[in-house]
Structure formats: C-alpha cells, structure tokens
C-alpha cells in the first residue's frame, strides 16, 4: 500500500509565492506602515513574540532539568532546590533555579531521532521528517502567523548564531515563502547589505532614493500593478529596516544592563535578542554552542552551563522587568538530550528517548512540571510527549489555534502535527 508520503502536502504551484508576498507585505507594514515614538510601550503589551534558546549539540537533561543524583546515571552533580518548592534542577544552574517560578519543565520528551540534523529539524518543525514535505520552522510559522508589529519593519524571523557569516535564509520557511525565511546574524552581526556602504554618504543615498521614487511615481501613473507596487514598496521597507539598524548595535545599551548579561559572546547575544524582541521582531533564536559532549560531559557542562546560567537569568529578569515576559514565549531546547549511560570517556552520547525542555513566559504556567522519567532517567514513565505536542503548546501559548491549517495552493497542511495535541497542563 502506498503511504501518502508527500503528494498532498508540498507547496507546488509557484502561486503561493505571490500570494504570500501580498499577505506579508501588508503584515510587515501594519496599518500605518511607519514607526512611531509610542509604539514600543504599546508593543510590549500586545505583540506576541517567541524566543528560542537553542543549546546546540544536545545539552544533557541530567545536568539541567531532570537531575538523577546518586544513581548509576546521575553523574557527579547534585540537584538543587529552586524557586518552586519541590522542584529541583541541576546544581550547575544556580541562577536559573531562581527563575523556575517563571518556567515550566517538560520531562517526558521523546524526540525520536538521535541525529543532530534530523533532531534539530524535528524540534524546530514539530514533525518527523517526511520524504518530500518540507515543513516550515517554528520561526517562519511565528513570523507568518503572529506578524511583526506595526512599529517594526525588521524581519520577523531572526537567528543569532555563535559565529559564521550573516545572511538571509529561505529554506527554513519552505512553503510559507521566502519572506519568512530566517535572517542569520553570525556572532550577532547584521548582514553586510543591511548597512550603507562606508563609501556612500547619507546625502548621496537620499538623493538617489528621491530620484528612484520620482521615476516610480511617473511609471505608476499609467502602469500600476500589484507587482510594481510591491517592488516599489520593498525599497521603502528596506529603508525603514536600515533606519532601525541601530537595534543591532548593543553598544547603544546601558553598560549596567550589559554587565548583568555578561561581557562575553552569549551575554551579548542574549542582550541583542532582547533588543530585537523589544523592537518588534516576532521570533528570535539564539544558539549556544556546543553541548555535544561525547567526551568529558561533566567538565563541558560546567563550562557551557557556567556561560549560560547567569545571562539567561539576567535575560528572564530583564524581560519580566520590561513587561515583556507576558507577551514573549521563551523556550530552552536542544536537538536532543544525552544518554543516561556514561561512556568510557566520561561522556554522554546522543539520546532522544527521554529528555526535557524548559519554557516560560507568554501563556505558560510558571513552575509547572509535566512528565516523569524513571529513577535513573532511562525511560519516560509518565506523560510521554513528542515534538508535535510541544509545537502545539508553543502555538497555543502565544494565542494561536494550532488545529488550523496552512493552505498553500489550496491544499490543507495542518500547522501542527494533528496526531499530537498541546500539553495543556503547562498552559496558563
């Protein structure tokens, strides 16, 4: 029997590109199309946003959210009490422990694949890969469904990577269209073309834009179409983005705030993430590398979590203090967990069957813990969930109906895996 592997699901007619373009242009501009001074305050109250903190390589659940001290798998670290009575997490996260009243833990996750690439896809799309359907990443879904605030012309889907080049990706938006593809900021730097070249003056730039507008106005008198309008408008949008370019510059931040986040890469990247969210970007992902600890798992977790813990707590405090936590869903995930079994190199290997994700902020019941693993963490014993459950949960937490479908070319594609449902226990 033929499984329905891909036919009904792929985005196929190019029509979708045009349709999405129209939709997204309107969404990106909002009703007024221009930023205003009061927008940020208003934004903090209403605009729903998503922040994913991606512990790349696969952080160990046993050293973080689901410690098993004094067992054969537990390793050398203790479990410490948190701001939520009865809930313990790993001792490498003392500052995070004080944030647990803002965070829920899902301890019964089975993400099915022990492969870095596939695992990442599963966690970011909420589905197991299927032969020829490419599902959009959560960032593209959020950017499309939540839209940017009227105040922001910035792209809705941004990822901050530890290093590497900056640029525009399109693949992760798949059938939602290139507008919702991620903009990558390698080491937090904006793509080169986002800034005016050094040898071009602002006056010269303005002069050529004026002339371009004049030409377009004349042309549009007798040859106006949706496409010519969209093209002309794209330059206006680009100009607004360029004007918002300061958002990428964390030097504009109060040094005291910057100190709290920490004067190192991850601290800077978290601070940048907060600036972007505050400026109205719908989705920001910050990757922290690298947790792939096949060797010396414990030393590496001391190092990595040592970097993560304090800036993360500072970020949570900062989001709360700015009133942004009610509208910003924060998710701490990896592409997989790590084996309970400790290998001969004091390492832990790839593991997807029983691990944890923490999330908080918008729509999430802080302090909730759902799902259990057995005494030494080798099996889920209560409330096993898949990435699909999490995907539904993320969407519902930010007020979206996760049972709806996208309709590229009039073909229904459920936004989240219909075989799963939201984890209602942690929804506020």
């Amino acid at each position, binding site marked *: *029997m*033929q*499984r*329905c*592997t*891909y*036919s*009904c699901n*792929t*985005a*196929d*007619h*190019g*029509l979708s*590109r*045009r349709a999405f*373009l129209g939709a997204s242009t309107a969404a990106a501009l909002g009703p007024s199309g221009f930023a205003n001074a009061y927008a940020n305050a208003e934004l903090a109250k209403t605009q729903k946003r998503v922040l994913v903190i991606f512990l790349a390589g696969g952080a160990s659940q046993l050293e973080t959210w689901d410690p098993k001290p004094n067992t054969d798998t537990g390793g050398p670290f203790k479990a410490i009490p948190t701001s939520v009575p009865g809930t313990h997490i790993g001792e490498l996260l003392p500052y995070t422990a004080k944030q647990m009243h803002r965070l829920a833990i899902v301890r019964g996750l089975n993400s099915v694949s022990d492969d870095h690439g596939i695992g990442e896809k599963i966690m970011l799309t909420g589905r197991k890969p299927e032969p*020829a359907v490419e599902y959009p990443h959560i960032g593209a879904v959020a950017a499309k469904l939540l839209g940017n605030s009227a105040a922001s012309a910035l792209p809705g889907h941004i990822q901050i990577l530890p290093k590497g080049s900056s*640029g*525009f990706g*399109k*693949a992760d938006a798949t059938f939602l*269209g*290139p*507008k919702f*593809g991620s*903009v990558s900021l390698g080491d937090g730097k904006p*793509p*080169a*073309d*986002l*800034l*005016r*070249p050094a040898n*071009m003056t602002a006056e*010269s730039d303005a*002069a*050529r*834009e004026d*002339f*371009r507008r*004049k*030409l*377009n106005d*004349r*042309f*549009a008198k*007798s*040859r106006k*179409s949706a*496409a*010519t309008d*969209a*093209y*002309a408008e*794209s*330059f206006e949008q*680009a100009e607004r*983005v360029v004007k918002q370019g300061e958002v990428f510059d964390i030097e504009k931040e109060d040094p005291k705030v910057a100190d709290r986040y920490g004067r190192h890469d991850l601290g800077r990247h978290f601070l940048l993430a907060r600036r972007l969210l505050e400026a109205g970007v719908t989705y920001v992902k910050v990757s922290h590398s690298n947790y792939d600890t096949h060797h010396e798992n414990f030393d590496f977790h001391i190092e990595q979590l040592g970097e993560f813990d304090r800036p993360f707590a500072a970020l949570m405090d900062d989001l709360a203090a700015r009133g942004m936590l009610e509208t910003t869903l924060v998710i701490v995930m990896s592409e997989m967990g790590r084996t309970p079994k400790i290998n001969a190199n004091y390492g832990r290997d790839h593991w997807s069957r029983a691990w944890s994700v923490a999330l908080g902020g918008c729509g999430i019941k802080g302090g909730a813990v759902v799902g259990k693993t057995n005494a030494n963490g080798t099996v889920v014993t209560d409330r096993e969930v898949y990435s699909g459950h999490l995907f539904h949960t993320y969407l519902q937490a930010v007020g979206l109906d996760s049972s709806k479908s996208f309709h590229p070319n*009039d073909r229904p594609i459920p936004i989240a895996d219909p075989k799963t449902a939201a984890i209602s226990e942690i929804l506020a």
Partner: protein
Amino acid sequence: MLVCFLLATVVSVGDARNPLPNRIDTLIAAGFPDFTKVAAPPADDAEFCRRVYLDLTGTIPTAAEVRSFLADKNPKKRTALINSLLNTPGFIRRLMWFLDVTLMERRADAKVPRAAWESYLQTAVTENRPYNVLVRDLLSNDGSDPKTRAAAKFFLDRDLEPNLVTRDLSRIFLGRNLQCAQCHDHPSVIDYKQEEYYGIQAFVNRSFLFPNAQAPTAIIAEKAEGDVTFVSVFDKAKKSYTVTPKMPGMKAATEEKPEKGKEYKVAPAANVRPIPLYSRREQLAGAITSRDNPAFARTAVNRVWSMMLGRGLVNVLDWDHSANPPSHPELLDLLAAEFVSHNYDVKWLVSQIAYTQTYQRSSEVPATLTDVPADRYLVAIMKPLSPEQFAFAISQAGGQPNGNGALGPFRSMFGARPGEAQDGLTATLDQTLFLKYGGTVRSLIAGRPALLAKLTTDDAIAEELFLSVLSRLPTADEKRDVIDALKSAKDRNAALAELTWALVASAEFRFNH
C-alpha cells in the same frame, strides 16, 4: 484525430493568405466585446524595442541599438528587428535559459555538471532541434555514454525517484500536476486520476540508478520485472489495482513479454548493471511525444506563449484540466496544431507570437479602461525580469554586454526555490538590499558614469543615460531633473552614479513592460 481534422478545415492551417499571427490576433480579439475599441494601442517603438530585446535575446538593447531602431524609417522595421534578433547568439542564450529552467527548475546540478548541460542545450538550440526530438532525447538517454550523458540530466538529477519523476513528467510535459493523485484521485480536480499517475510511473518504476543514487557517476539501469500497484487512501476496502505503462488519455503501451529465462540482455548480478530485453522506460519518450498525445504539444505551446506574453493560455502552466479551461481554447488548439505541423519548431513559434499585435500591444493602461482582466490581453502584461534577464540587463546598463559573471549571484538571489516554478515577482528584503547596497550591483553599474562623463553637454548625458538604462528617451521633466541634479552636484561622478542606480532600481527597469 477528429479534433485535428476539424481544426484543419475550420481555421485553414497553412493558409498563406491568412498568416498565423493574424489568426492569433483574431482569436484574441474575439475574446472580449469591442476588443479593438478598448484594447491598448500598439507599444511605441522604444517600448517594443526593449521588450523584444529582452524576450528574444535576454537583455536590454544598447543606447545605440535603440537610437538606430527609433531612427529607422522602414515601415516593416519591427518584423525586421524580430527576424534579426532571432539569428543572434542572444536568442540561443535566451532559449537555453528557458529550456534549462523549464526542464530543471533550478535544481542543484548533481550528476550532470552545469557546463556539460549548457553545452548540450547550446548544441540543441543552435541547430534548432525540434522540441519533440529534444524531449525524446532527454527521456531516452540512460547516461551510460559519457559523450551524450548530459541529456540524461532530467532523470539523473532527480535521482530517478519514481514519485518525483512522475510528478515532473506530468507537470512539465503534460501540463497536469498529478501530484495529488499519488494517494487517491484528486479531491478537487475530477480529471486527475490516481490511475493516470501510476500509468505514467509504470514507465519508470523498473528503472533505478546504478550502482546507487548517491554515486555522482550513476547511470540508469532497469529490471525486467516489477509492476505498479496502488491503493487509494480513501478506499476503506483497500482494493489494490495494477497498471501497465500508459499516458493519460492514450491507449496503454503494448507490452512485450519475453520468454521465461530470456528477459535480460544483461542479467542482474552483483555489481552488474542489468539491461532487460524489453524496456518499459524506452517506451516513455515515444509515448509522451507521440502525436496521439495532444497534451505534449499543447503544454509546449502554452509554456512558450507564457514566456512571451507573461501568462499562459492555461494558467497556471501545470493546471490543465476541464474545470480550469484555457482563456482562449481555440487559440491554444490552433497553436498546438501549427506547432506540430511546423515540426515542433520553437524558434518559429516564438517568431509567430512576436509578430502579433497581441504581443506588440502597449503595457500602458488606457485611461478609459478601469478593469483590466489579465487573461484578455487587452493591455500587455508586465513581466518581471527573470534572474538571467535581470543580470544581463544590469550588466548592459553598466556598459558591459556580457552578463555571464553576474548570473550566479542573480540566480541565487532571485531564482525560485529548486523544483518550484518561477512565478510572478518576489521582492524580499534580501533581494532589495542586494540591489540597494550590494557590492555585485554596484560594481556592475560602476562603469556607466565614466561613459556618460565623456559627453559634452548635460542634455546629451540625460539622453544617453535614459537610452542606456531604460531604453527610451527621457521626458522633458526627466531631462530637466537630470540636468538640475548635475548642475547642483558637488561631485559630478557621484551624481552620475546616483542617477544610474536610481534608473536601475526603478520599477520600470525591473519589469519587461
């Protein structure tokens, strides 16, 4: 057959007194009440000149070419220009791009390198190989002869994956997107049957890549056995059907059944590429391109029409079914019949379309026309430049006729996703920033200011600038704007660069209008 016969008598195929372009125009005019009164007038000479250069050679004309065309007093100068452009290297380039994107849809070059594929296409276009011969060649080559291997790209770079190949054979050559019929009869298109999907797949289901799909040098091998069976996911009884190779709407191919034990020329064994005595895949090329398969010519002419006019008679190009009829059914039948009787000659078809008033109509919307239904061709449709046209046009605007160096960046920036049809305009932030601040565009147009600065008067500079970039003379207002900008400029060279960029970044430049 009956349809062909009727056409032959009713529209008098080959009647020299009524050339095809006139018949096309008549059928287009019949598609709207009072067509001639409401339709846009012919494009002016400059508009026509730019359009036909872009469509037939893939780039804009030089200022000198525009001047010479504008000055030409020959009343038949448009036909003369079309005929001359059809015989330039530019036409070969343009048709290569068209065929490449049509057949490969910007898939990554995997098993057939780009250079070999382009060289193959260049030979085919240069000798004006009939389209049916080209397609037969593509679908029958097994990639085993290094000298001709490039022709197998269609299969090889799709890894001969049966569902992908079935989908693309039906979309690209039959104009039918049968993808939804993989799992069940199409839920909303009654014409698209699951049986048809598997009838096509049965031509290739015994074929596979040898030694495996991962090998970059893989070739096509085939088994002598294996049937295609399918079950509809809608069928609760799970009834299974078996189909043999069959094109939709045609009779099933007659299958040879070799004697038992004699099924192979080369029998399968470890590390041996099997060759069956009777090959199902060898039947495919003939079946698709057969004159008894009207979908083949119909789809081909629809795609060429769309390339020239900016919209298919069947729109979307792979959505040909009875509930989505052509905008001008008789015209599509006529073009298909003429294409067949002219031996599938794409160059000839392009020329016939270019000669029409329909093609040569202005894109300027007449003031009297408030509603412009795109499928009536009352006003020329503005076509966004393809990535290739855009690369070449910007190079030309900068004074550099050869845009080959810019193809890579423009294809990756403006090309559709691999495996998807290029459709309409996208204007994403990265594309706009690429045009606005990107180094590629800046260096492509960097030469223009120096060329303009050689001219002695600002008046001459304004004219040359507009002719070089927008392929037309400036209006009085525009000329004054240029002269003012130059007079007030502290740095003339910088001002010329600003003006050049503004013209290149204008909507007028982005579209073939």
